[in-house]
């Protein structure tokens, strides 16, 4: 395959300043048990070749299915036609990068595709059944997913890398329907549960069946729980909800293509300016955020990005000040950075790489455990699982809903509250961050439906965080 890809880029390299080619083979398996019945059992496989050409200031990309020379040459011809069509945009430079070479496989102790469907269903069916043992549960769901992606990449600048990334995960959810509405509780999270760059051992470690009775009981209890009150409060966020807060108000906001206006027509722009590097106050002194593509288990981890740039750990916010961006070779060069942040990722063989999140994490603080953080909080509300999310196109004004909340009274968790909504303005929320739990409480959570780009691409990313406390957050709607 490598030789074919090299031949293909040779076919265009003399005519254009930069060409790269990739072959991607992807396999996905999804299983869901819904109300006692395996309801979606699917196995999907695709492969193809994608050719990307730099033409002036534009990227021309063409993809064709398969792995043979004919498919590759046909894709190359379409890429060249696109590159040569229309008025050339002015040339813009790329950062200088070494031509990465090598092979890499992510760690998977138990190959998820080597585990039989029988074994997977033997785990899911009792977990889902345990949800419906709770009186009042209308819908029970339990699911797993596995994905492997094998990618060979070459470029006209000498890069030649091959990597195999394996993901696996699962989760459960219970829906209870009452006279006044439906309530849902999910475990470990509402975005496909918990997915990691790992093998089947990750699903085994989730202990889905053991958690099912609690999840189901909480879903039913929410029907009769008091509504979360409105007004300014102290908010303790953890798990998936804190991950989503990072995702929407930090991760997307520091994508350099957005900052520079390249995504204005779809994903939007950003309240963050390129000139704010090193001086923009993003949040409090307790706020330290890192984009780390080298984290073991993170869905945003790899050895090389889709431009062949090695994975990096990039400081994004240090002591509350903006200190970095998620960048590509093009966007980094545009603001005068010497090197790309290595954040170009593409979904499958049929999409061109764009700037994406890697693993955006809130660095741990020194507030101890979650119990200690709550113990140090007189009054407030605790939310850990996300239900809905919405933020404006500059990533400034947001509104989130959790699945459930718990009131904090005199340093203890109290009643469960339904329909917790909070809203705010990105730098104001992060300015209110006054405590982050310590390293042992730091966890990765997953987001498997991060949409961006035209044509649309869904990225899998992880966010790491320990529970954190935010002061003066607006609960409820205006």
């Amino acid at each position, binding site marked *: 395959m490598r030789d074919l890809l090299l031949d293909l880029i040779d076919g265009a390299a003399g005519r254009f300043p930069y060409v790269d080619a990739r072959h991607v083979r992807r396999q996905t398996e999804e299983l869901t*048990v819904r109300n*006692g*019945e*395996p*309801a979606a*059992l*699917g*196995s999907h*496989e*695709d492969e193809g070749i994608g050719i990307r050409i730099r033409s*002036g*200031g*534009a*990227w021309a*990309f*063409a*993809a*064709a*299915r398969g792995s043979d020379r004919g498919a590759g040459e*046909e894709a190359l011809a*379409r*890429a060249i036609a696109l*590159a040569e*069509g*229309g*008025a050339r*945009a*002015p040339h813009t430079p790329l950062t200088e990068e070494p031509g990465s070479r090598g092979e890499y496989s992510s760690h998977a102790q138990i190959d998820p595709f080597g585990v039989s*469907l*029988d074994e997977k*269903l033997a785990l899911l069916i009792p977990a889902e059944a345990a949800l419906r043992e709770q009186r009042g549960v*209308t*819908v029970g769901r339990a699911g797993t997913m596995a994905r492997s992606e094998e990618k060979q990449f070459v470029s006209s600048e000498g890069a030649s890398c091959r990597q195999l990334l394996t993901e696996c995960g699962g989760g459960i959810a219970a*829906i209870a329907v009452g006279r006044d*509405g*439906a309530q849902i509780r999910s475990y470990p999270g509402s975005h496909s549960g918990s997915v990691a760059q790992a093998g089947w051992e990750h699903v085994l470690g989730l202990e889905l069946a053991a958690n099912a009775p609690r999840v189901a009981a909480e879903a039913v209890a929410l029907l009769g729980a008091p509504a979360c009150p409105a007004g300014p409060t102290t908010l303790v966020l953890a798990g998936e909800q804190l991950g989503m807060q990072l995702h929407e108000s930090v991760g997307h906001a520091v994508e350099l293509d957005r900052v520079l*206006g*390249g*995504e*204005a*027509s*779809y994903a*939007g*722009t950003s309240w963050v300016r390129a000139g704010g590097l090193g001086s923009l106050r993003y949040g409090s002194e307790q706020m330290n955020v890192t984009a780390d593509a080298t984290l073991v288990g993170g869905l945003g981890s790899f050895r090389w990005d889709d431009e062949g740039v090695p994975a990096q750990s990039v400081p994004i916010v240090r002591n509350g000040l903006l200190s970095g961006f998620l960048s590509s070779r093009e966007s980094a060069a545009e603001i005068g950075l010497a090197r790309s942040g290595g954040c170009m990722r593409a979904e499958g063989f049929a999409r*061109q790489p764009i700037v994406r999140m890697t693993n955006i994490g809130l660095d741990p603080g020194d507030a101890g455990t979650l119990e200690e953080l709550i113990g140090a909080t007189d009054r407030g509300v605790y939310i850990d699982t996300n239900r*809905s999310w*919405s933020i*404006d*196109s500059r990533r400034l004004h947001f*509104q989130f*809903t959790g699945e459930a909340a718990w009131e904090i009274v005199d340093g203890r968790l109290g009643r469960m509250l339904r*329909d917790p*909504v909070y*809203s705010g303005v990105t730098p104001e929320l992060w300015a209110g961050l006054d405590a982050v739990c310590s390293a042992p409480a730091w966890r990765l959570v997953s987001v498997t439906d991060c*949409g961006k780009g*035209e*044509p*649309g691409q*869904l990225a899998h990313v992880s966010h790491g965080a320990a529970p954190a406390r935010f002061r003066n957050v607006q609960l409820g709607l*205006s």
Partner: protein
Amino acid sequence: MSPEELAQRAVAVVPGDALITATRERWAVLRFAHSRRTQLTSVDDLTLEIAALRRGHVGGASTNGARTEDLELCMARAARAAEVAADASGRGSFAGFPERAAPRPHQGHDPATAALDTARGDQALEAAFESAAAAGVEAGGIWTAGEVQRAIASPDGSLVSDSVTDAYMKVVAIGPGERSGYASAAAVSAAAIDGGALTQRAAQKATGDTDTLVLEPGEYTAVLEPHAVSELLCVLANAAFNGLVHGEGQGALSGRLGERVVSPAISLSDSPRFPGTLPRAFDAEGVAKAPLPLIQDGVAHRVVHDTRSAALAGAGTTGHALVAGGTVDGPRPTNLVLLGGGETDEASLCAGVERGIYVTRLWYTNILRPQESAFTAVTRDGTFLIEDGRVTSPVADMRITDTALGILARTRALGARPTLCADGEYYGRRFASGTVCPPLLAEGVRFTGTAGA
């Protein structure tokens, strides 16, 4: 290889009951920002999907390989999944794939668009850039065209096939002070897309000397352009018309069919051949598409079903399967049509408004409570104050948190001409769809915050 050929080849290797779908997609996207080309994409793919039925369970598998061994492996995976499900849980509830009748012809294919001449797209971009320069704005957006051919076959010898084309262009104009304006168009034919005209419309919203106002949250009379109305209808597509969640009591129309749920001015249907829509001949189970009234004169009539949700409801499929055998999330309408009313256009809708908000489109819409059709979204790319019957000042984007049924219940007037609204996002495989709807005027729309200041 055509989808029909691939589907028929696959039938030859398929033992037992199964539905075989072959889909060929060819498309191009020309993306631009700052009034220059940025990302250009061309894709050609052919995918085979097999849904195998064993003892009431459906197993699915797909591949984009076309060798005989690819087809055999795909079939083996689908069949194995269904068999394992049956072994693990006993007989399943899926009664069988529905009968496939010959679909009616439609006007959803344009041979010139199917030729995928990106020179036409280049011309649209150049026209957009010229209009942007003339208006003093920068243009961002996409132009795209594509053809999707689909064939569905089964071992009983039945075969249905369909070919559709679509074209779409979106322009977001960025004016001085970063004000933005939006315009888009979608059609079966790329010839219907005028990049220059779209850019002029978008630029009008992004320019002008008037300062941008920040309004207090509260209930306002609102005039919603068709793209904003389309977002409301998409909320209902998921929260109200999904036959699976409806049957489980989670839907916004659960227990309410036959009741007046919105204004008598509202008549909404799923109409796959309505003028201006993006037609399709059949659903993912090969069931011929047919018009389905959902709300008539404000009264809720129907929800949509695939085979699986229909069986749970004791009803028949309405031809709304998104995947053969159904998805865990249920079926959804794909050709919503909201009939127009008596007002000429947005300007005539504004004419009777003393003070209100004009909304071009909504962004980041997310459902909060499906049973209430409660959602939140942010206005974007053209939000204005309406005073004394006309649009006056631009307004900083605002958050709406309301219910879709509530807004349609408070609708007082609709524009006469429904427009095809598509989003052009094309996640996954290309499945162009859109909503045909007019602009409308609604009272008491709940704006719960500022989102752009």
